[in-house]
């Protein structure tokens, strides 16, 4: 029989959990490490948001602002064509008040572009006039203000304060110390637009608390677009292709205001100092006269594409857009830059109201105009015969110079003679095919900077005639190729033998060809240039300071970012 007394009852094992201490310790350790790891992950995520999301928005906001600036600048360039009315279509509207003086101002908003439509830009253009005499008061310049906004994706808070009220540490409340680090730099707007709250429209107008739909970053830039009057800053500037001088040709420069230079009609050939098979130019280095060297190396060539070919040397700088031009592969004396994009807007026909009409045949016309802005005007149906432009002001004792503006509604294949003292602009709509001798420019280089004359005190002190304001012989015969308006239409300019040429060509749509072994004293702006004969192309540096009399384009003269 089984005894169930206490002394003999069955002993069962008692589990006191003494092994649980280890389990708790292990769990605690895991929890601690997990907390540390979680904290690190949170920090890393925050940093990731800062570096990725915020940085992305920061950069994209600038892209958006610059896109707005480009759109604004493109609209400004429309003003070059009289048939265009800028700021009237494509979403442009009058800017809200207050507009600048004298104004007017226009604005346009482009939104919904970029990834997920997160970008938008608002551009405002103010029309201003210069009162310093730098450019004519009749020619406006434009201030382009562009705002680019990028919506921030991801976490709404990426380490910045969103306090914008008076008690907050950042932005409005304490504009003297607007936070640190990213707060100071990127200025994320989480709930409110800090700029509108602090600065209103930027000039203190219309201040107010303005909420934003999403966290966003905004950047603001300001561009100044000014008219271009000076376009001959180098020997050649072509949009499409440059096929330069042949192996015995070259491009160099001289200065018609330098009294020590020889007459360009009788150039002096001297040795130069760059290596290669062709070591001569008219105005290259001359051991006995360093001024030749100073003037000789500015025959700059700019090409708007990568298409650049050269046989003979170029004494100047070369710029291409994506080309592979190097000093080792080409004979170039100056700086090479293969990353210079540019475009040339088409050249519109000028207003010919009040001009005298004539046919294309042989005739002599007299110019009496006394400035580029008030020339004597003629309209020809073409030039097939011999046209002579006489100076009608030779008897003027103080200013014996005359200006003519000729518009040719057709081709130029005949002779053009420009008398001494006449500055002639010759605009043409068709093609031009002439020999060098057909372009008879009878002016001479001044050989020094022009000086104003003396009005004199009759009868004792006689009048001293003023110098011709244009010191360059070349600058007295200026051709302008009016861009064809018909779709697919082209324009050509061909200059054949014999005879040298003393004239400038501004024809942004024209393919220009020089045939034979010509000497061309000129500056060219065109669509393309081909002169692979043994052409000596000589750029007059004085053209760099001679207005061509028309606004050919606008250019960006300043770039600033509003960092508030």
């Amino acid at each position, binding site marked *: 029989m089984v005894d169930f007394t206490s002394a003999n009852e*069955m*002993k069962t*094992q008692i589990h006191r959990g003494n092994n649980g201490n*280890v389990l708790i310790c*292990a769990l605690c*350790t895991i929890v*601690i*490490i997990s907390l*540390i*790891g979680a*904290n*690190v992950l949170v*920090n*890393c995520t925050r*940093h*990731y948001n*800062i*570096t990725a999301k915020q*940085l992305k928005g920061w950069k994209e906001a600038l892209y958006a602002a610059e896109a707005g600036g480009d759109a604004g600048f493109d609209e400004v360039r429309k003003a070059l064509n009289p048939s265009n009315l800028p700021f009237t279509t494509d979403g442009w509207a009058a800017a809200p008040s207050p507009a*600048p003086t004298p104004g007017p101002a226009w604005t346009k908003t482009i939104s919904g572009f970029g990834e997920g439509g997160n970008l938008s830009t608002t551009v405002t253009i103010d029309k*201003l006039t*210069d009162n*310093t*005499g*730098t*450019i004519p008061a009749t020619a406006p*310049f434009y201030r382009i203000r562009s705002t680019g906004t990028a919506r921030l994706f991801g976490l709404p808070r990426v380490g910045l304060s969103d306090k914008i009220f008076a008690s907050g540490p950042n932005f409005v409340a304490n*504009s003297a110390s607007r936070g640190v*680090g*990213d707060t100071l*730099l*990127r200025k994320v707007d989480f709930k409110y637009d800090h700029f509108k709250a*602090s*600065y209103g429209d930027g*000039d*203190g107008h219309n201040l107010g608390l303005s909420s934003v739909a999403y966290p966003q970053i905004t950047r603001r830039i*300001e561009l*100044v677009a*000014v008219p271009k009057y*000076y*376009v001959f*800053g180098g020997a050649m500037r072509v949009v499409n292709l440059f096929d330069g001088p042949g192996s015995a040709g070259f491009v160099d420069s001289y200065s018609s205001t330098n009294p020590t230079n020889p007459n360009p009609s009788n150039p002096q050939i001297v040795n130069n100092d760059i290596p290669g098979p062709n070591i001569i130019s008219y105005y290259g280095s001359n051991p006995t006269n360093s001024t030749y060297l100073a003037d000789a190396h500015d025959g700059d060539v700019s090409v708007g594409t990568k298409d650049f070919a050269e046989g003979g040397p170029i004494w100047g*700088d070369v710029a291409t857009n994506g080309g592979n031009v190097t000093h080792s592969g080409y004979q170039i004396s*100056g*700086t*090479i*830059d293969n*990353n*210079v994009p540019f475009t040339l807007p088409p050249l519109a026909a000028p207003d010919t109201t009040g001009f005298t009409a004539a046919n294309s045949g042989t005739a002599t016309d007299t110019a009496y105009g006394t400035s580029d802005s008030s020339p004597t005007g003629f309209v020809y149906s073409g030039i097939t015969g011999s046209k002579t432009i006489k100076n009608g002001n030779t008897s003027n004792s103080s200013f014996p110079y005359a200006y003519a503006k000729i518009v040719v509604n057709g081709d130029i294949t005949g002779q053009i003679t420009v008398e001494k003292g006449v500055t002639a602009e010759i605009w043409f709509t068709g093609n031009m095919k002439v020999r060098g001798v057909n372009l008879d420019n009878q002016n001479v280089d001044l050989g020094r900077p022009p000086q104003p004359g003396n009005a004199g005190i009759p009868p004792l002190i006689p009048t001293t005639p003023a110098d011709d304001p244009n010191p360059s012989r070349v600058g007295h015969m200026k051709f302008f190729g009016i861009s064809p308006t018909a779709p697919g239409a082209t324009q050509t300019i061909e200059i054949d033998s014999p005879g040298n040429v003393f004239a400038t060509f501004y024809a942004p749509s024209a393919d220009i060809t020089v045939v034979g072994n010509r000497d061309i004293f000129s500056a060219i702006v065109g669509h393309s240039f081909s002169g692979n004969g043994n052409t000596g192309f000589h750029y007059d540096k004085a053209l*760099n*300071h001679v207005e061509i009399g028309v606004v050919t384009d606008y*250019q*960006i*003269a*300043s*770039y*600033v*970012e509003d*960092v*508030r």
Partner: protein
Amino acid sequence: MKPVRLQDHGFTLIEMLLAVAIGSLMLAAIMAASICLQRSFSAVDSYFASHVQQVRIIDYLSRDVRRSYIVTTSTDLQTVTCTIPNYLVDNGSNQPTRATPTLALVGNKVVANYQASTVNNVTITQGSAAISCPGLGLSSHFTSSNAGQSVVGTGIPAGTTIQSVSNCLLGNCSQATMSNAASTTNTSATVTIGALTNVIYSVVNQTIQRRENGGLTNIAASADTLIPITYDTELLNTEFTQSTVTFQPEFARGNQTFLDNERAGTAVFSLTYLRNRRRGDG
């Protein structure tokens, strides 16, 4: 049957020592792992934090270079000086307004200035602080208000100001004295004078500092071991800078070559063009 009452039995000393030894080893391993993990986490955290500092510094530098008139770098490539148009008008209310641009002709280029003026045909002589322009009758000359203002131009050291002007007639002056001597000679220089903004990036005790007109900007709160290098390149009609900022990761151990490689692996690079160097370009 009598079941064994285990709790009634003690451990022998050997058992105890053995248990303590094993337990200590396990705890030590856990502690070591924890410390390593913590250090690793700290290093990762520090890496990301430094990376944020890097990016911010690069962004600041790029923004300032992009809007500069002139950028110069020191020979050790670690100090960058930016001369920036003074776009904002300080009206004393901590709410500055925008300045209106004025135009000037430099050669055949039209440039726009903000609260500054341009003087052409200035004669600068190497080693001399005196500069002059041709005559009072010309439209471009110094003015009596130029004294104390910044002056920039080729051959003029960064941070130079006009100390005084002389040979004046009706407020138009043909001579001026700068605070620094010119580094080159130029008889037809163009200088810009006015309220320009001067921003200097420099390394102070392994921290990159940004000073705007002398005032410190807190762009990197704890930027120790960050090192910037900036190359300034001038081309035909433009100028750009290439900047790199690196830092030393916490985990990096080893010889100098290894450390250099570790640092090189953290590089953040930026290439920025001076937008104002193309201004007025034909």
